[in-house]
């Protein structure tokens, strides 16, 4: 065990403390459903995993390679639609369908990449938004194929069998919890492996200075496309997972600009280009959006006696705060960009180094 730890840390520059911390957290998460059986708590955890997967996948392209795609809904949506359509129309179970989804996304990503990577900076951002919007409109209007604005409802998820034994029938949230957990861990591991490899160095060089990277022998188009493929395939997995978990998809929920922006926000708030940034971002954003959705904030204000429930302000808050979701997100982003330009994680790190210096 000790030699294994040492080997891991030597080869990848990961400290043994980090590895032990990982093991503890993972063990905790693994037994979590044994002690907590509230479906709501599990639901929040699943959303956390989903958001982590989405953030980590975007991070490979946006955070490490510096290509700020605001069109990741394209890969999320294509993954979701492929898996869902194969399950509903062709009776292909989702654990096969999601690989088909990933394959379709590879093709889509290569087409998008070959077009958009001709552009740099803000022009790339705009192009990525445009491509995702095109896909949303296509899904909206190809009614015979995608069922258009009515969306697709999963009527029945086939039970997952190995041989004849039924592993799970997906009736509770627990199997989704574990699938989400495994996916999230896999995406983080992929990110770690990429970061500590030649690819990771090249991605970061491209982010820092494309012309310098080019002159140091880096094939820009090739490496940007590789980063996109990693990112897109993982995002499509998140999309497939979302489709099966929620059981309903339509263009506004899986292909809209909202999703793309949400994915970017997870990283901006947590810390772009860091391994744990998206995890931190998810820990901030998921509870916040749930609190807004379920009007927890308005209720909190009433409980604290800041406003009475019957007053005009109270009624206004109760009715509108839940819809102010986007506004509050916006304010949060402004605050983060102003005061924590490196995200929450970067901010915390800075605090620690500052304290260390004071002590020294």
């Amino acid at each position, binding site marked *: 065990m000790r030699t294994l730890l040492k080997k891991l840390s030597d080869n990848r520059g990961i400290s043994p403390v980090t590895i032990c911390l990982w093991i503890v957290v993972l063990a905790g998460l693994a037994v979590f459903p044994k002690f907590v059986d509230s479906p709501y708590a599990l639901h929040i955890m699943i959303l956390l995993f989903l958001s982590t997967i989405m953030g980590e996948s975007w991070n490979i392209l946006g955070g490490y390679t510096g290509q700020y795609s605001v069109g990741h809904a394209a890969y999320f949506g294509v993954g979701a639609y492929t898996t869902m359509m194969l399950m509903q129309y062709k009776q292909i179970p989702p654990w096969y369908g999601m690989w088909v989804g990933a394959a379709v996304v590879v093709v889509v990503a290569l087409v998008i990449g070959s077009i958009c990577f001709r552009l740099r900076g803000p022009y790339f951002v705009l192009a990525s938004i445009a491509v995702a919007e095109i896909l949303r409109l296509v899904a909206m209007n190809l009614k015979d194929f995608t069922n258009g604005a009515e969306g697709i409802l999963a009527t029945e998820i086939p039970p997952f069998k190995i041989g004849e034994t039924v592993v799970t029938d997906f009736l509770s949230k627990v199997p989704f919890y574990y699938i989400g957990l495994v996916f999230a861990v896999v995406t983080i591991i992929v990110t770690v492996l990429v970061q500590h490899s030649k690819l990771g160095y*090249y991605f970061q060089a491209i982010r820092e200075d494309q012309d310098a990277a080019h002159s140091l022998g*880096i094939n820009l188009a090739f490496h940007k496309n590789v980063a996109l493929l990693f990112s897109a395939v993982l995002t499509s997995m998140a999309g497939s997972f979302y489709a099966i978990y929620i059981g309903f998809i339509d263009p506004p929920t899986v292909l809209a600009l909202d999703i793309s922006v949400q994915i970017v926000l997870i990283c901006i708030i947590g810390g772009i280009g860091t391994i744990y940034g998206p995890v931190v971002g998810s820990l901030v954003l998921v509870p916040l959006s749930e609190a807004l959705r379920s009007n927890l904030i308005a209720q909190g204000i009433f409980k604290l006696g800041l406003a009475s429930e019957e007053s005009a302000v109270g009624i206004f808050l109760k009715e509108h705060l839940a819809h102010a979701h986007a506004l509050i997100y916006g304010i949060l982003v402004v605050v983060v960009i102003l005061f924590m330009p490196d995200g929450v994680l970067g901010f915390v790190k800075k605090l620690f180094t500052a304290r260390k210096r004071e002590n020294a």
Partner: protein
Amino acid sequence: MGAILEIKHVSKFFGGLAANSDVSFDMTEGMIMGLIGPNGAGKTTLFNCITGYYPPSRGEVLFKGMKMNGLEPNKVCKLGMARTWQKVRPLAKMSVLDNVMVGALCRTNSLKVARDIAMEQLKVVRMDKKADFLAGGLPIGERKKLEVARVLATKPVLLLLDEVMGGLNPAESEEIIQLILEIKKAGVTQMVIEHDMKAIMRISDRIVVLNSGEKLAEGNPQEIVTNQAVIDAYLGSEH
């Protein structure tokens, strides 16, 4: 020794403006070629044409006998021709060591090997003690040295240095001069753009003078300082 780089009638037009017109010269292996000329003479444009950032509008560039026109900069680098930038381009959020490793990874897929090569190059420019610093936080003198270490890590046979002494104090410039001579000793052919005349006269085996995009003169340093056309270009013909 044969020519390692042949520049044949290279012209580069930006719209109606000829940044380079009909420039030709050869470089033999192991030499240091100085490239001088007043501001706007087309020195950096020539660098860009040679290293693949622009295809020349006319003429051709032969490196080790191969035609380079239109080859992308990354391929040019793989073939053994590397350049630095007049305005330094450190990979700011990466450490000094990581910067040099990116260069070293041009020749290897192993991070470990790349790290060793990078450390070696940092020792050459005497920056091994700064390996863990962020490149973005370095003062200009060290950024220039980092730039040199990074291209050296790509193991070039031909190195093009674009004003590596620009903005440096005399002590730092002296250090760079020694470095250029060391690189020469290691067998790397170099083309150096520099404004510091004393420095360029000391290090160059031959010098090409550009003026308004055209080649004004070529020769060894002695010939250049006594060339009337060069003196006129620099000081005006009335002097």
